[in-house]
C-alpha cells in the first residue's frame, strides 16, 4: 500500500515529528522515502536570487549551493539515514506547494508526509499566493497527504486505532476506501465518525433537541448503508455520531478512542486566501489532533 513515500521537509525542527513518522513507516513497510526540500523561493523577476526559506537570506543559486543544501539535509537526518533505509534526497527551488506537487507528479508517491506548519507564512513572498502550502498541497495532490503536527504517540506499524471522519461527501467515500484498506493492512480498529454540525453559523438557526436526534439517527443509517455494508470482513469497528462543531468533536472523539491516525477527506474547494491560519475544518483538526492526520482528496 505504501511503496513510495514523499517526505516534504523543511529540514528543521518544524518537520521533526513528521520525520519520525515518515522514517518509521519507511523502515517498517520497507518503502522508499524521498526526502524533498524546497530551499527557497525565487525573488526578483528573472534574477538568480532566491530567498532561502531557512535562513531568510537572499542567496544566489548555483549547482554548488544546491549540492551544499543537499548535504545539509543529509546531515540533519544522519541518524535516520541508516544503511537499511531506501532513501533519496532532492532539493528544489520554487514556491513550496508548487514544487512539492511537481515532485509528486514526477515520482508518483503513495503518500506525502508533511510537517504541520512550514514556518512563517506571513512573509511577503507567500502572501501573494492564496492559502498555505499545506492547504494547496492537500487540495491538489493525487495521493493521500499525512500531516504530523505533534509528536505521535505511536508509530506506523504499531497502530491499533484509526478514526475515519466523514461528512458524507464523495471525497469522504474515497477516504473511506483508503481507511478501510489501511485498517485491514495494519490490522487495527476502525472507528467511523460523523459530527453533526450544529454551529449556528452553518445552519443559520438553532435546532431543537428532537431535530438533532432525528438527524443523528439519519446519520447512523447513512453510515450503515454506505460504509458498514462494505466491511463484511471486518469485525473490529465502531461507529459514532456526535453533535457539535465538527473539528472539535472529531478531535475529542479521537482522543477518546486513543486514535493513532485520523483519516479525512479534504473538502474545501476554495482556498481561504485571507485566513490561511484559521483555514478549513481539516486544518483545524490538524492543529488540534494528537496524532497524524491523513487527508484525502481523490
Amino acid at each position: 500500500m505504501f511503496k513510495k513515500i514523499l517526505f516534504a521537509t523543511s529540514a528543521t525542527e518544524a518537520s521533526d515529528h513528521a520525520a519520525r513518522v515518515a522514517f518509521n513507516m519507511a523502515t517498517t513497510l520497507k518503502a522508499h522515502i524521498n526526502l524533498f526540500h524546497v530551499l527557497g523561493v525565487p525573488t526578483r523577476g528573472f534574477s538568480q536570487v532566491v530567498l532561502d526559506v531557512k535562513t531568510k537570506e537572499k542567496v544566489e543559486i548555483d549547482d554548488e549551493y544546491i549540492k551544499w543544501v543537499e548535504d545539509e539535509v543529509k546531515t540533519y537526518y544522519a541518524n535516520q539515514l541508516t544503511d537499511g533505509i531506501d532513501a533519496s534526497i532532492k532539493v528544489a527551488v520554487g514556491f513550496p506547494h508548487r514544487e512539492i506537487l511537481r515532485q509528486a507528479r514526477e515520482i508518483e508517491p503513495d503518500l506525502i508526509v508533511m510537517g504541520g506548519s512550514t514556518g512563517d507564512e506571513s512573509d511577503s513572498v507567500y502572501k501573494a499566493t492564496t492559502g498555505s502550502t499545506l492547504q494547496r498541497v492537500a487540495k491538489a495532490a493525487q495521493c493521500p497527504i499525512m500531516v504530523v503536527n505533534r509528536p505521535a504517540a505511536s508509530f506506523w506499524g504499531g497502530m491499533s486505532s484509526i478514526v475515519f471522519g466523514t461528512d458524507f461527501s464523495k471525497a469522504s467515500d474515497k477516504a473511506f476506501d483508503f481507511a478501510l484498506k489501511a485498517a485491514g493492512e495494519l490490522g487495527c480498529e476502525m472507528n467511523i465518525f460523523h459530527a453533526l454540525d450544529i454551529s449556528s453559523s452553518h445552519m443559520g438557526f438553532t435546532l431543537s433537541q428532537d431535530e438533532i436526534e432525528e438527524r443523528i439517527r439519519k446519520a447512523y443509517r447513512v453510515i450503515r448503508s454506505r460504509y458498514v455494508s462494505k466491511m463484511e470482513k471486518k469485525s473490529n469497528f465502531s461507529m459514532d455520531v456526535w453533535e457539535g462543531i465538527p473539528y472539535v468533536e472529531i478531535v475529542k472523539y479521537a482522543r477518546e478512542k486513543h486514535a493513532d491516525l485520523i483519516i479525512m477527506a479534504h473538502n474545501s474547494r476554495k482556498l481561504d486566501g485571507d485566513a490561511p491560519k484559521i483555514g478549513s475544518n481539516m486544518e483545524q483538526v490538524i492543529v488540534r489532533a494528537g496524532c497524524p492526520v491523513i487527508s484525502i482528496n481523490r
Partner: protein
Amino acid sequence: MPEGIFCNKKPVETEEELTALLGDTSGTQYYKEMKELDVDSKLLWTTIQNTCKSRIRTWLEICAHCGMCADSCFLYLVNDRDPKQVPAYKIQSTLGEIVKRKGKVDNEFMRMAMETAWAKCTCCNRCGMYCPHGIDMGIMFGYLRGLLYQQGFVPWEMKIGAGMHRVYRAQMDVSEEEFVETFQWMVEEYEDDYVGLTVPVDVENADIMYTVNAREVKHYPEDLAEAAILFHAAGENWTIPSKGWELTSLAMFAGDWAACKMQVESVYEAMERLKPKRMIGTECGHAHRATVVEGPYWAGRKDGRPPVESIHYIEWLAEALREGKLKIDPSKRIKQPVTLQDSCNYVRNHGLRETAREIVSYIVEPGYFRDMSPRKEHNFCCGGGGGFNGIGLFRPQRNKGLITKRDQIIATGAELVLAPCHNCWDAIRDLEEEYEIGIKWSFLKPLVISMLELPDHMKPEE
C-alpha cells in the same frame, strides 16, 4: 585579457555556454573580466554610422539643456534630485559622448555607460512626454543598450536572459515539452473544480492563440490554469502553440536585437502555422511591447503589426466582461480600497489607458477604487522596469527606485494593488518585502475567478 571567458562580445548561443555563465555565481568573474574588456571603437563607430539616423542625431543635437525633463524621471526625483540623474544629462554624457568622440571611448567609460543605461534608466519613456522638443531619452537608452551589448558591456543577468532566448526561445530554461506538459498538469489539477477544463494544443484556425511568460510555467503555473478557466468560462475557442508560446523578451532589455528578432519570429511562425483569429498574451507589459509593439519591426514587417491581430490580456478581459461572456457575481466584487498600476509598456507605449479601468468598473464595488497620481500614460514606472528588477549588481539602486511607487501607493490609501504586468507585479512584491507597507497585489485573473459566476456546465456536481 581583452576578451574574457564569460564577458566578451559574443552572445551566448548554446546550452553549455549558458550553464557555464550561470555557474559564475553573481557574475563575479564576469564583472572582473569586464574591467579588461577592450572597446572595439571601429565597430562602435561603424554601427553608429549605420544605425544612428536623423531622429537620434537630431535629438542629441537640439537638446536645449533646459532641464525640463528632470522632474519627469522618477529616478531623478527619488535620488534627491541628483543632477546626474537628469535624463538629458544621462544620455548626453553617455550616448552623446560616444557619438561626439566617434566611438573612441575607453573601458571605464563603457562601464559607466552600462551603469547609466541599466541602473539609471528603465526605458519607461516618461521623459519623452515632458520634453518640449519631443526628445525621448528612453528610446535613446534602448539604442545605447544595443551598442553596449554589442561591445559586451552588459549586466550579467541580461546576457543570460538574452542567451536564454537564443537557446530556448524563452526567457527561462523551459522547453516546448515542459510548457505543454505543465499546462496539461495544471488543467488536470483544476478540472475537478472546473468541469470540462482542457487545454487545446496546436489547434488550427482557433479564435484565440494564447501566449505566456515562461516564469508562469516555471514558478506560477496556476496562472496557466487560471487562463484556461477564464477562456473556458467565456466559451472561447482557444489554443496554445507548442512552439512559439513565449511572449516575453529579455533580449529587448539586453539590447540584443538579433535575439529579439529570433524570439519574436518564433511567435509569428506559430501564428502563421496555426492561423488563429487573434493572439492574446498573458498579463505582462514588456512582453506585450516586445511581441506586439516592437516585434513587427524586428521581424521586418513594414506595416508594424504582427501577422494576426494581437491584443493584451486586459483587452480580452475587458471585452469578455463587457459582452457578458464572463459574468461577475456583484456581491463578490472587491470591497476594499484598491488601486491600479498602469504599466508603461502598454499604457504609455500602446495607448491602453482606459482598458484596465473598464475592468475595474466591473470588478470593484463602486467607491473603492483609488487612482494613483500621476496616472494613466503619465504614471511613473513601477521602479523595476527595463530589466532593473533582475540585475543583482544594481539591486541597491533598484530598491531606491521602488520608493516612488511605494509613496504613490501609500498616497492612494489602497490595500490592494492591481498589477496586470509581471514586471510591475514583481516590483510591487519586492517593495512590500523591502519597505513593508502592508499591501497586497494581484494579477487580474485570480481576482476575476474569485468573483466569477461559473456557467452551469463548469460547476462540479454535488
